[in-house]
């Protein structure tokens, strides 16, 4: 299917969805409204709300806060995850010592940490950043650890036979291999950074998309909740597009990153 055609069908899905929602919320069927507007609002109201936010400009501040938190969580989480993953993979003793603790921490539902972070770091952005880091760190950590450990032995032998020193091996074999694994988890880790930020805001903050949704829920403003969710969804889609662009740029050498050469 052509790109234009695909986009057309993708838009059609949204159109049908919102059309059905509007219909079921406003037109009674056998005297019975399937989606009572008090509980489900209507697409028209939801989009009016989004429009109002955009016109009044209130949404931008919240978006900026969520974006800042997500970016900080992503950058700090991936950097620390990559460095520690790299270190563990090269030092098997260290990895063996910390192994049970890494597993325990990874198994812990991060939501329970949110109040602790709020207590330690206050209700500003840093408690949300911290929550995002705990999510992003493990994704990147495990990928880089795996990537370094599974660097092809043939490639390593070849690099050694070409006369590479340990430092050159790090730079030319281990690091690119780890990076390729890290980038393969880019979509997941960016997604987790946003999840961390929004959940953190939801549980206690004064700004951000999570705060916006939580405020609307507090006053049974269903239109506000859905409007917040749609803005959040748009935000995530935009970030994901950006990640895809970055990925295609950085992983040109990978067979599946773009089209196969002739």
């Amino acid at each position, binding site marked *: 299917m052509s790109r234009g055609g695909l986009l057309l069908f993708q838009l059609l899905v949204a159109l049908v969805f919102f059309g059905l929602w509007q219909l079921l919320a406003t037109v009674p069927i056998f005297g019975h409204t399937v989606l009572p507007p008090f509980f489900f609002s209507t697409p028209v109201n939801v989009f009016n709300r989004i429009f109002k936010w955009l016109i009044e400009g209130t949404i931008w501040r919240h978006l900026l806060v969520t974006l800042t938190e997500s970016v900080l969580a992503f950058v700090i989480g991936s950097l620390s995850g990559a460095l520690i993953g790299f270190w563990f993979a090269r030092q098997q003793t260290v990895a063996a010592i910390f192994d049970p603790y890494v597993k325990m921490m990874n198994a812990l539902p991060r939501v329970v940490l949110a109040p602790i972070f709020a207590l330690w770091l206050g209700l500003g952005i840093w408690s949300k950043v911290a929550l995002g880091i705990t999510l992003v760190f493990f994704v990147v950590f495990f990928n880089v650890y795996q990537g370094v450990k599974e660097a092809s032995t043939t490639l390593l032998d070849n690099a050694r*036979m070409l006369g590479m020193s340990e430092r050159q091996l790090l730079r030319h074999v281990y690091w690119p291999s780890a990076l390729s694994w890290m980038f393969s988890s880019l979509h997941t880790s960016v997604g987790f950074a946003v999840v961390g930020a929004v959940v953190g805001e939801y549980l206690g903050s004064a700004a951000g998309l999570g705060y916006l949704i939580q405020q609307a829920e507090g006053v049974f403003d269903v239109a506000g909740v859905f409007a917040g969710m749609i803005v959040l969804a748009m935000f995530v889609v935009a970030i994901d597009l950006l990640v895809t662009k970055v990925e295609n740029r950085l992983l040109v050498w990978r067979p599946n990153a773009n089209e196969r050469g002739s």
Partner: protein
Amino acid sequence: MVDKAKPTAVALDDATVAFRLADARVYTAVEQVRLRIEHGEFVAIVGPTGCGKSTLLNVAAGLLRPSSGTVRIFDSPLAGLNRQAGYLFQADALFPWKTAIDNVAIGLEVSGVPRAHALERAQAWLTSVGLAAFGNRYPHMLSGGQRKRVGLAQVLIRDPKILLMDEPFGPLDAQTRQIMGNLLLQLWTADRKAVLFVTHDLEEAIALADRVVIMSAGPRARIIGDWRVPLSRPRDISEVRMEEDFHALHREIWSVLKDEVMKGYAQSSQAPVEAA
């Protein structure tokens, strides 16, 4: 030609390689191997699958230490990696994140050659393996044969005195193998290195080499035959196969190799393990 005045390039004496398996038993891959490769000599090793041909190469490369016996490279004992040797691996060993030209240049860059100069030399090598226009391609954009050419350039740019090749053309189709064989001979003629070429293809071995060495089926594989190839050089791989001398030698070697191949098949269906 073989120059007797120069020291022997690779000399294995009584080399035995044993691996300790996970269940603490010992698997002896090759036993008591004595092998000499003279300066400028092209030696092919042929044997049934799983006979430890690659093990011998890894010993000569210094990637594997023999459990007993000695390895001498140009008359000095080998300690650590063999710095005089270039190794063309059976599997793809190009850096997938480097373009073809960077893959070739890296061999010089690691020894401190400035990048601009390394790239210039790499381009020259890409030209001599017939890939002048493919420098900017990543390995996945190249065909199997093209990747082998880049691999060959990557190894040769460092000008090793010894060339170790582990079934380098194994995964290629028949036509590409012939082209690669001729390319290898052409590059080798320009600057005779000592070559140790492992293959399971007897015809390829005879067509390329000065000497063909036959190994028995593993475990405890050993060298069971050593033939000098009486064909003149320069050779063309496809034409040399028509010559009577080629057929005579092929028949002679095959009569020995055949039994080992059958043994190899029989053994590969059992667990290749012996008591420690």
